[in-house]
């Protein structure tokens, strides 16, 4: 369920490292908690992310939730599919429904994130 090569935050984002860039998304646990997702608000290309700060939001029918930057860096690309089909986040949150591509400012930040096993035990304890 939770890919071993991803790193995770307690705010339910994931990061997949690809050299000095990374893909960022929200976890399967997050999409389940939110329910039917109808709107995704993402930063513009070129925006600077600061780890732990809100970078945008994801809305389900019932509520809006902040997305927090899991790492610092520059936004290189966003997943346009989510503008027209936000429901993809319910279907494939760890794959086709990634949120954005980021150039890392400080690759060491990755080490502060949770492993798949740690994240799973964290959400197990939370729920």
């Amino acid at each position, binding site marked *: 369920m939770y890919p071993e090569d991803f790193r995770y935050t307690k705010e339910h984002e994931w990061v997949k490292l690809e050299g000095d860039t990374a893909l960022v998304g929200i976890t399967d646990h997050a999409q389940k908690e939110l*329910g*039917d997702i*109808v*709107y995704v*608000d993402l930063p513009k290309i070129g925006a600077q992310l600061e780890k732990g700060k809100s970078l945008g*939001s994801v*809305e*389900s*029918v*019932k*509520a*809006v939730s902040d997305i927090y930057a899991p790492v610092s860096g520059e936004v290189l690309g966003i997943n346009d599919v989510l503008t027209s089909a936000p429901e993809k986040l319910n279907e494939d949150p760890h794959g086709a429904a990634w949120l954005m591509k980021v150039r890392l400012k400080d690759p060491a930040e990755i080490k502060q994130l949770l492993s798949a096993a740690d994240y799973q035990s964290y959400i197990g304890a939370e729920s």
Partner: protein
Amino acid sequence: MVDFGGWDMPVQYSSLLEEHHAVRKGVGLFDVSHMGEIEIRGPEAIQCADFLTTNSVVKLKKGQAQYSGLLYQHGGFVDDVLVHKVTDHHIFICVNASNQDKDFAHMRGLNRFEAAIELSSDKYAQLAIQGPRALETLQKLTSTKLTEIRYYWFIDGEVSGVAARIARTGYTGEDGFEIYIEPSAAARIWDEILQAGEEFGIKPCGLGARNTLRLEAKMALYGHEIHASITPLEADLAWMVKLDKGDFVGRDALARQKDQGIRRKLIGFEMRGRGIARDGYEVYVDGAPAGWVTSGSPAPTLNKNIGLCYLPVERAQIGQAIEVMVRNQPVAAETVDTPFYKRAK
């Protein structure tokens, strides 16, 4: 599960959208046992209820129900309620879960009639069967002829062998029933209704779908459209206030307000720009703060983002351009006629 006034209740059982559509197209089942019940009994039960609420209880026939307001003397809402006339000496009132203790104390404190007021929430579980196939579903479980119950009427009958108050009322904008039964039978009857509705695609529905359904039908939610500092005239609920019926709690304040004119009014809107309005968001007119959103959500039946807001009365006209501040960004919206959704008769 969320804590809702001390009750653990699911926001959704499966998917909010699927539950919403089930009620619009087929049938959905809600466990609304958290709702409170207050009963007034005695020779002056009718007069007592008439004095405590805004609508005319005197005009109710036996077996009839009405939506009404429970107000403070200053005209603000204590609660919005459903008043049922059981007999000439017995009034049954369904109230909001989180308000029931406050309602009960308020009513008892103002009771100067030959009537006893009792908080009897523990005696009833309440299930709501809602949607175009609600009647066919529930009819399988009762000998009470449901077609004989008109909208906003009720019958004391039975469901699956258990005494039940069966009311043709609801909070979804669809046809349907709300049944009041003894709590010990509720779990069994819940299962039987789900079985009876299977052929119509019945779904158990949570608080999430209850909210989107009632919002599309522009039904008020206490704590949002109405609360202690909002009057029925401001909330676009003047029809539930009968100023000419005689004295009632809040009458003087409302008569004065009607005389002087209200300053703000509830009105519906649709988002024109990209964004979803949510409860509490600010509303701007001509670049200046003018009001606030009381409820906002995507409307699954309409495929639009809708909401209700308070605006200065001179701005509360259909077709007014407004801006909703969505996370500090102004997003264009326009006031529209309501209800947003009305079922075909």
